[in-house]
């Protein structure tokens, strides 16, 4: 599925300083029954966000209008657990284009990259700086510069660079996906398959 190109993102951020946020929290299994990729944002963090009677939980960060923006900042080991890409869809569909953490679970990171959400891994120290900056002023803006591979806290003179593999970076910058690439080398794949018994 093609997605929007990602270059430079400037936005405020939503803080979620909790560790080990797993994909069952991001999108509980009972919301995985759709056969299309639609409407997952409504159920992002469903059980943390709503009471059982569907009224919003006052203290949850997504229900606090002070915090908004296209960046979600999570604690260490974000996205562990199930491989459900629905978790990344929910993040995207809610309006986030970037997730920041000091550590990501593998499959979640991959899923994000495959749908055009940029996972930015920062150091523990920088993550602290980000959380503090938002705490001091929820209107703090951040700049994620993909070509330069940097993340900055605007107005605070704090910048850190982040890693991303060159191939994935190109894909994101251009809005391509892996399938486009693979379909292009189909002949190679087919001759490989012939030499590979079932």
């Amino acid at each position, binding site marked *: 599925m093609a997605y929007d190109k990602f270059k430079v993102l400037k936005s405020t951020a939503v803080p979620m300083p909790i560790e*080990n946020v797993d994909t069952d929290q991001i999108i509980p299994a009972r919301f995985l029954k759709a056969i299309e990729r639609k409407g997952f944002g409504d159920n992002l963090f469903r059980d943390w966000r709503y009471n059982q009677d569907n009224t919003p939980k006052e203290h949850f960060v997504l229900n606090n209008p002070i915090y908004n923006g296209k960046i979600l900042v999570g604690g260490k080991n974000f996205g562990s657990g199930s491989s459900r890409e629905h978790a990344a869809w929910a993040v995207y569909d809610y309006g986030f284009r970037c997730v920041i953490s000091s550590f990501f679970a593998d499959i979640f990171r991959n899923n994000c990259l495959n749908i055009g959400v940029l996972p930015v891994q920062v150091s523990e120290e920088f993550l602290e700086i980000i959380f503090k900056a938002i705490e001091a002023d929820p209107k703090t803006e951040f700049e994620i510069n993909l070509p330069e591979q940097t993340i900055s806290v605007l107005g605070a003179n704090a910048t850190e660079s982040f890693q991303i593999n060159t191939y994935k970076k190109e894909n994101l910058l251009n809005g391509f996906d892996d399938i486009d690439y693979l379909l292009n080398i189909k002949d190679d794949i087919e001759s490989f398959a012939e030499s590979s018994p079932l």
Partner: protein
Amino acid sequence: MKKTLFDKVWDSHVVRKVDNGPDVLFIDRHLVHEVTSPVAFLGLKNRNIKVLYPERTFATADHNTPTINQHLPVKDPLSANQLKALEVNAKSHNIPYWGLGHEKNGIVHVIGPENGITLPGSTIVCGDSHTSTHGAFGAIAFGIGTSEVEMVLATQCIMQPKAKSMRITVTGELNEAVTPKDVVLYIISKLSTSGATGYFVEYAGDVFENMSMEGRMTVCNMSIEMGARGGMIAPDEATFAYVKGREYAPKGTEWDKAMSYWKELKTDEDAVFDKELNFNAADIEPMITYGTNPGMGVGISGGIPNAASIDGGAATYMKSLQYMDFNEGEDLLGKKIDFVFLGSCTNGRIEDFRAFAKIVKGRKKADHVTAWLVPGSHKVEEAIQQEGILDILTEAGFELREPGCSACLAMNDDKIPAGKYAVSTSNRNFEGRQGPGARTLLASPLVAAAAAVTGRVTDPRELKTLESV
């Protein structure tokens, strides 16, 4: 260069390397289920392409299926719709489809090995993180997201960088009542849920060599819970004996050819791993979890640790205990429980039912406990009947349900009610995993059985003693 088992299998499947990018990895077999595939099939439709190798693709319905009255139409319209979508997609792409009621139906990671789809030295993927289960056969097997499901359907390849390698060696003799589940829960409790992130794990040492194939599957299954991409165990005589004669396994000269490849599948003596960990079998007790991730486990007779003794965020730790309504320092033994779940791709195989039956035999289910016993497949169900296990269970007041993922992820009606405690043989104790507000204690089938008959967290070794008195 000396190679690890992982290197050998990975390298032999690389179609090409992308400069400064991932490898293009050829996938031998792709398992598909109803939940993570519909959007992938939709993607094929939008691109106007067909599944490239339907004969390498197998579909089953398991995540979203009821575990009672499977002969009746599925009640929940959304679930029914999703199941229908898989059936239609499988038919239109000529993929074998083992839907509800089919004799080969069951949990995707149980039926793969059972039918000989899972083979040593192969690459296997599925849109489900516990695909790591198949690593028990010396395969590279891991979970993928839906974009990748589409990718494999379309091209039989995925694009991923090669993971780092880790070897976890456990040696020595296991204590009484310590099962493969305890071994893996122990390892996760030492590594935490992110301790192996970025790695592919090889399990080595006599503990794994002496394990049955079912036990190896339980261990590899939970590799993902320590963050690993997957886990694998070198194939040996036990592996070959398990695979031989199964429906999709090679036969005749094909078998001989395969065997000559499979026998090479061992880590070279001097191969170097990026990380090595060693554990002693003697240190492992029957395990149980008390928190909201699988790393929060302890020996059953140990209490709940104090926040101060835990690495990492105390706030996250306390939030987790609060969810469980547990206190620091409390004992787990004797805690009253409400539900028992025996099943899932971790512990829903015949060996697990044998273990459970061993404990409940001649005892009675505790009155206040609701027990859901869910075989991993129809073949497991059949074996339970044939081996007389069903009689033991019935006698003790238990009922058997029909195969499926069931309360492991609670997508169907099998949900543990809010606030209730469940001792579960599945793999995840995340908040709400087994139903909104459900509280899960992960354990082995023996610990689950002991809880089912006493209604409390009980050390299975105690029941054994009672028996001999």
